[in-house]
């Protein structure tokens, strides 16, 4: 039985209302009669396809790069770690437009690395790669914040036991550490995917907007608002639906 004081319900319901009512309001605005048509137009489907592709690749990158980062942040003992952790989490709180500007200054044609990349024949500007970079940049902290906490909570006793049995660090990592934090890894992965799917500001600033190449679902929604607000609402609802499903799956234990 829950032993919460009953008055807790009042602010909890107020807070719930603040979050849930807007979602309901969007659902009520959806032109249900045309819903199917709206979300299956050429441009909608191209955007959906691109969004799923880029969010998928970004999520993979988040896992491949974010898991090692989380491991270092949770286990390494070096001075300055809190600062490093703060820096790594910045994209979580940075306005995405500023994130996009930062990416431009880095990977843009005249950016920190962009010039070198250009000389090497790598063109990032206006490519799907740019979308993936932007999504990875904003989504990675979600993976790190989920996983690092879980790694700290899980502690090191199973890892120490495995080492005591003679297991090398790689074996410990792959067969003990990661399986133990699998729920958090799954949840962080799905949060990253959802965040990548919803990414807008950094993408539009850094990657541009071209159907099939860089115009993801959120950009399509923004554009449709200009010409067909009904389509924008329908696509917004679709995006919310995907987000709910994805988070509900991730947070179920």
């Amino acid at each position: 039985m829950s032993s919460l004081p009953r008055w807790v319900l009042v602010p909890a319901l107020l807070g719930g209302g603040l979050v849930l009512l807007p979602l309901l309001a969007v659902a009520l605005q959806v032109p249900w009669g045309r819903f199917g048509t709206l979300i299956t137009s050429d441009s909608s489907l191209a955007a959906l396809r691109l969004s799923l592709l880029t969010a998928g690749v970004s999520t993979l990158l988040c896992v491949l790069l974010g898991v090692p980062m989380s491991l270092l942040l949770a286990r390494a003992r070096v001075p300055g770690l809190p600062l490093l952790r703060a820096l790594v989490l910045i994209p979580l709180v940075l306005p995405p437009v500023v994130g996009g500007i930062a990416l431009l200054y880095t990977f843009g044609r005249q950016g920190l690395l962009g010039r070198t990349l250009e000389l090497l024949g790598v063109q990032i500007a206006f490519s799907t790669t740019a979308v993936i970079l932007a999504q990875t940049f904003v989504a990675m902290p979600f993976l790190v914040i989920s996983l690092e906490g879980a790694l700290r909570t899980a502690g090191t006793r199973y890892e120490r036991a495995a080492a005591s049995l003679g297991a090398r660090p790689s074996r410990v990592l792959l067969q003990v550490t990661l399986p133990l934090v699998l729920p958090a890894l799954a949840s962080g992965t799905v949060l990253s995917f959802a965040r990548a799917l919803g990414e807008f500001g950094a993408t539009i600033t850094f990657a541009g907007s071209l159907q099939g190449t860089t115009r993801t679902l959120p950009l399509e929604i923004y554009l449709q608002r200009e010409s067909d607000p009904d389509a924008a609402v329908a696509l917004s609802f679709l995006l919310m639906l995907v987000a709910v499903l994805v988070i509900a799956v991730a947070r179920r234990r």
Partner: protein
Amino acid sequence: MTLHLHADVPSRGVDLRLQVPDGGTLALVGPNGAGKSTVLSLVAGTLRDGHSRVELAGQLLTGPGAWVPPHARRVTTLSQDPVLFPHLTARANIAFALRARGVSRARARGEAARWLDELELSALADRRPRQLSGGQAQRVAIARALAAAPQLLLLDEPMAALDIDVAAALREQLRHYLAGRTAVIVTHDVLDALTLADSLAVLEGGRIVEQGAAAELLTRPRSAFTARFAGLNLLTGRWDAGAVVLEDGSRLPAAGAHPADASVHAAFRPAAVRPVADGGLRRTVRSLLPHGDLVRVRTEDLAADLSGQQVAAHALRPGAPVRLAVPREDVATYRA
């Protein structure tokens, strides 16, 4: 696989030297905070503090300029908490240890099955740790530790979390497996020390206060802690013609032959103590506690296991005076 250890960890006030011969089992006992865990961590390689030196089977594991990481030491720890990997079955837990030392997947499966059989765990092979009882889990942990084929086994109160029955059965199994293996066991239970160890070291305040053959030390304790641990009364005095003269001048007739005036310890079982009307040692009852079918009567420095009749006949209750005697032949004496 002889272990030579010099533990020197100033931050924890530990400075001691230990040695375990090949195949021997050393029991480490002592009050909480005496340094037992520090010794184990040093040997396991989870503590790198201080200027310690650990040498096993001729290889320097910890020392000046030397550092072998825990996984490469072939030193396996078995603790009170079995620390079975929760996501693996009993079988897979054991196979993990085999795979870790390079055994092929197929052979590991077979060997794991052998270990499960050996420890009568075959029926539980496919269970996850949360489906095992405490005793079953600890048996899987033992199988897993042995499957790792360590050069040295560290046992950190391996039975402390188990029911009495289960602990007793497991102790027998451990005794079997420790024969011929080099091991160090930390314990609070005299049964563990007597059953599993050949030698015993008593630690207090980061130093070794007593060390020797386990049976010898526990029948002839030299410190209050060891005596309490062994369940014996311990008095110290001067030898005088077949008796120990205690500090207060009272005499305790005792077996033994020592030079006159030699400083000696006298050890005797609480069950050998009986109340007498005259003579004996004058003490005051501190507490009475049931002890099996007897009553354990505690005084300032002695414990006596008496029958209910004896307690009643001498009107023993907390605060009451009592005279306690011990048959001469039950009092073992040895030079202090």
